[in-house]
């Protein structure tokens, strides 16, 4: 028995030890530091407790508050747009690949998924050129069909959407694979039975495919949200949060405040706010889905 207990510890200690030291300890520190004044250039012991002051500041009317609330709003908008594009596209692509029985479907799957392997820095560099208003091919192609040159990354009205589009381009293949995995779980017999009852295309999609994909879609939405919150490279390298703060998103903003400006307490308060926002959103989505299921 002691031998058995020893092997449990030996098997789990390396991974759980690392996760404890490098994830659980830091997340606990983040929560504590959020209530302190602390420079991230100095040891943790120098942090002094200041209650809710950091939170008052990041939600206050000053410039810190204005920038933070802007970043929070940009991240929410960015995540919403990403999910709203990725989910329908990945369902469309997944059905096209898995259900339409077309030749070359596997090749399409490979091409779509390959973009997910491309480092974000390369994606950012390539799209900064593709989006170039004068020399870029995207405006050239749009010009052929009479759509006049768009400013893309250089205007506050279009910059965030442009970053969303490059994110969707990179990630949609991964979500297509998740959807295909969900589609393979739907028994063929259900479709056959429905078809015998006279159901056709749209009805099959609306009454069978979509409801039975719900869990997959829910999971995909959560992953897409977590991924969207992490957008960093295109902003750090190409837009620097601009123009006029329109692409200043949370990961970029928190790193700038907490590491570059060394305001560790303020940055931690922002991290805690982000974490709370994520927990509330994900819990709400699951609660809604469960209530729907019970109906």
């Amino acid at each position, binding site marked *: 028995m002691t031998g058995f207990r020893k*092997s449990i510890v*030996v098997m*789990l200690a390396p*991974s*759980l030890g*690392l*996760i404890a030291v*490098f994830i*659980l*300890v*830091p997340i606990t*520190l*983040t929560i504590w530091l959020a209530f302190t004044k602390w420079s*991230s250039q100095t*040891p943790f012991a120098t942090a002094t407790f200041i209650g809710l002051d950091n939170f008052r500041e990041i939600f206050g009317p000053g410039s810190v508050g204005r920038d933070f609330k802007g970043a929070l709003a940009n991240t929410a908008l960015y995540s919403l747009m990403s999910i709203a594009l990725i989910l329908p596209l990945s369902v*469309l692509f997944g059905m*096209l690949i898995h*259900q*339409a*029985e*077309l030749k070359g479907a596997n090749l*399409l799957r490979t091409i*779509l998924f*390959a973009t997910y*392997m*491309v480092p*974000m*820095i*390369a994606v950012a*560099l390539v799209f900064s050129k593709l989006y*170039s208003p004068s*020399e*870029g*091919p995207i405006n*050239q192609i749009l010009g052929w069909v009479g759509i006049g040159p768009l400013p893309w990354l250089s205007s506050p009205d279009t910059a965030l959407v442009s970053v969303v589009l490059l994110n969707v*381009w990179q990630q949609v293949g991964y979500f297509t*694979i*998740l959807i295909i*995995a*969900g589609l393979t779980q739907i028994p*063929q017999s259900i479709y056959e039975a429905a078809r015998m009852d006279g159901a056709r*295309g749209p009805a099959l*999609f609306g009454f069978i495919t979509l409801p039975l994909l719900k*869990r997959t879609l829910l*999971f*995909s939405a*959560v992953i897409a949200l*977590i991924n969207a919150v992490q957008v960093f490279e295109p902003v750090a*390298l*190409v837009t620097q949060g601009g123009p006029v703060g329109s692409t200043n998103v949370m990961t970029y903003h*928190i*790193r700038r405040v*907490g*590491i570059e400006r060394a305001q*560790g307490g303020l940055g931690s308060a922002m*991290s805690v706010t*982000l*974490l709370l926002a*994520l927990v509330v959103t*994900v819990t709400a989505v699951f609660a809604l889905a469960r209530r729907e299921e019970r109906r």
Partner: protein
Amino acid sequence: MSLPVTTSAPGAASPAWRGALYLLMIAIAVVSAFPLVWMVLSSLKTPAEAMQTPPVWIPGTPSFDAYQKVSELISVGRSFANSAVIAGITTAGILVTSLMAGYAFAKYRFRYREVLFAITIATMFLPPIVTLIPLYRLVGSIGLNASLAGVIVPNLANAFGIFLMRQFIAGVPDELIEAARLDGASEFRIVFTIVAPAVAPALAALALFAFVYHWNSYLWPLTVLQGNSNDYPIVISLSRLLSYNRSAVNTGLVMAGATLAVLPPLILFVFLQRFFVRTITASGMTGQ
């Protein structure tokens, strides 16, 4: 959104429909591949071609000058070696720690097993930014900052790998493990010589995922290396080309750098993708 579902009745859809679906499929493939094709083509352009408006798509006389220039601006060999060390060691660590923990969670019964597993899985959903600030300080205080070890050590275990391994090891027959125990094999031996081969496709998928993720990873190395450019992986060295990004003359240069960074993960993907797709499909990673 009214795709006909022709799964078990091919030919039920009209030829016109199928033609339209093929067109749609081609359009998606073209849009998906276009940025990468354009990247490679542009890396072969001369500066004069890169400047033209409207843009030239196919370089008249393909030249590798841009690649030459990239290697003069950043130490490509050194950066590649750093990336390979970071991604290679991290991947090896993840495979070992995930196999061991996955085996324990799948095959041992012990108190708090479900709680420990739940806590582990929860960390999978934490965006790295929420731990970045204290982690940066923590790694500094144990003397690992500004070094490759600082980039690698915090990532040697992860929840995704443990989850994946538990799912697949659960499917390894208990009789196989019992038989090995009766033969006097140690638990270590069982994990690495009996369980590991039995879940080899999932291990290959995990290796691909981990290697590509850590080859591409940007935020953490940038933060922990603090300007120690000797240890920069290729993705961070590339950001040095960005000062050349303002002018169109240097498009070829920037695209050559991007092409260099893309090649290793893409080549690995071509060889290992079938394992990856199969593993995601079989792992229940989709909420089932």
